[in-house]
């Protein structure tokens, strides 16, 4: 991908109505996210915290992956680096061919607007906007007119099954519905990458399953690459791959297998199926 410096947003986002079907299968060796020897250190008072230490991994396009690990393991830090919200202290993060270290603050913001859709644990919808305007919010950063922004927001809401709740404000929606609106907001710009931070953390079991199912569908039906940070063992049944982190390190080999096993055991029946092959 060409660097973004000095490039304006395109007149139209590629999201079509209806949304396109599955993309042609990517070559086996294709890589969307390439994390190269990344470390992230920061100071908290007098202490230096090593949130991530020499982590390297690759994620292919069209995959649904999870970062799992105990609190303080570095999974949220890694998610922030992948989504261009933070910068590594060392190493390089390359997403869709773009080295994020080459971009300044404003260019990084523009890059996120174009290439990343974000989903948060607490939905974080704007309470004074209805569902349609909440979903259309990221489209304010494009050159699209109001009518087209609304049309695309309605399409995205149809994808998540909420096209009958267009004019509802967040406080009139259930938690599950709010999360679906947040998912619609994340896909409305048709991003290369969807990043979800504990998307089931504030939902009951039924809505959590529905949300995970919806994310799975986005990968299966529309070829979206999804990176999810989660504690939820149910996620194992929906994701293609799990990256286990502990104390800032990426677990590999037998350590990773032991971590997966521990999650399966802790979850009982929830994760009986394990991660998808």
């Amino acid at each position, binding site marked *: 991908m060409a660097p973004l410096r000095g490039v304006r947003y395109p007149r139209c986002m590629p999201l079509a109505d209806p949304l396109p079907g599955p993309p042609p299968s990517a070559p086996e060796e294709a890589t969307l996210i390439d994390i190269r020897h990344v470390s992230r250190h920061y100071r908290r008072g007098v202490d230096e915290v090593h949130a991530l230490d020499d982590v390297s991994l690759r994620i292919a396009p069209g995959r649904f992956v999870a970062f799992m690990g105990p609190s303080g393991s570095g999974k949220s830090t890694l998610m922030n680096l992948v989504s261009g919200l933070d910068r590594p202290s060392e190493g390089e993060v390359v997403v869709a061919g773009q080295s994020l270290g080459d971009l300044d603050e404003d260019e990084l913001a523009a890059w996120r607007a174009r290439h990343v859709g974000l989903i948060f644990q607490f939905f974080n919808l704007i309470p*004074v906007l209805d569902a349609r305007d909440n979903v259309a919010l990221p489209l304010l950063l494009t050159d699209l007119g109001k009518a087209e922004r609304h049309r695309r927001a309605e399409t995205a809401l149809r994808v998540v099954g909420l096209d009958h709740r267009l004019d509802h404000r967040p406080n009139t929606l259930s938690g599950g519905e709010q999360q679906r609106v947040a998912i619609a907001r994340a896909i409305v710009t048709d991003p290369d990458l969807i990043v979800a931070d504990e998307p089931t953390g504030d939902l009951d079991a039924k809505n959590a399953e529905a949300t995970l199912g919806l994310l799975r569908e986005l990968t299966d039906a529309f070829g979206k690459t999804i990176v999810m940070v989660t504690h939820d063992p149910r996620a194992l049944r929906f994701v293609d791959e799990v990256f286990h982190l502990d104390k800032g390190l990426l677990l590999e080999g037998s350590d990773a297998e032991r971590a997966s096993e521990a999650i399966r055991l802790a979850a009982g029946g929830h994760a009986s199926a394990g991660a998808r092959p």
Partner: protein
Amino acid sequence: MKYAGLVLANLGRNKLRSLFTAGAIALAVLLVCLLMTMPAGLDRLISDLGSNTRISVHNKAGLVYSMPQSFTRKVRQLDGVLAAVSMTWFGGAYEEEGRVTFPNFAVEAEHVGSVYPDYVFTPGAVDEFVRHRDGAIVGRKIMRQYGWKVGDRITLRSTVWPANLDVRIVGEIADDNAPMLWINRTYLDETLKAAGRGGLGIAGIIWVRVDRPERVGALMSEIDEMSRNSESPTASETEKSFISNFFGSLKGFVTIILIVTALVSLCIVFIAANTASMAVRERSGEIAVMKAMGFGRRAIFGTLLAEATLLSTFAGALGVAGAIALTRALKTVATLGPTLGPLGNFTVTNDVVTAGLALSLFVGLLSGLVPALGAARKPVVDALREVF
């Protein structure tokens, strides 16, 4: 423009708070606009009161010092002088012993009509005043205040001279802008002579009527030059300037009010800034999410600043409209009675409207600047960490 919906939605988020903030700004702008009409209003008032061909001549040392009465005659001889009349403070108290409740002067009865041709007297008043040495001419306002009518006799006890004068009202100045009483100078002069005080040889103020406005400046110089080496050097000024000096202290008061208003406006800036800061703080989660979605520093800064500016400018426009409505109402009220007349002099001009709107814009920009900058400059990951 595409952010207008977002800005308006955010302004409507806490309607009561927006209403109170707008109300405070509107009230401050209204107050500032009204006060800004005062200097121009006073100027108009002075213009209405004063003639541009009348000169006041008084002792250079101040109004409480006198000049020789003979100087009045010298002034009358000057080329370009149509008439001149001396006025001497009588300081007469009516009813309330020792207290002067209205200005009263001893004047040269035969000259007042020529110096004040613009005054409206009751028919025959000036002639009667000349004819009767105990006559008095009284301003309409005082006549009404005491319930006097032409023909009434009143006694004035002077607080300056050893003289109690029994005078007969022979006429009225039918003008509310002349709230004074004139007695005949000859009457006071003879009374003082009878009391063994040697008569009234002095003049307090000499009012001079000049034939053409363009000669006023030269004549003032000539009069002052004429008295320069005498015991009573004079200072001449136009009637407008003379009245303006009387209003001088009021203008100083207006300046103080304007300074206080500026300070009040500054307080409003702080209040509005506090409101804007609270609004930003309450929405820090949303702002963090917007930044995460890709809203850059300029977009965040612009929308937050637009909110504060829009609210403030809208409130300022209301304040300006309120000031216009109020001054128009005052103009209407001014027509209801002659004593209310001066209220009609205060007008919200285009300059005042511009200043009012500029003030509200300034309040908006200043109050929104700091919180908007703070929100825009905070790194996205720090903003997210603070709220999640």
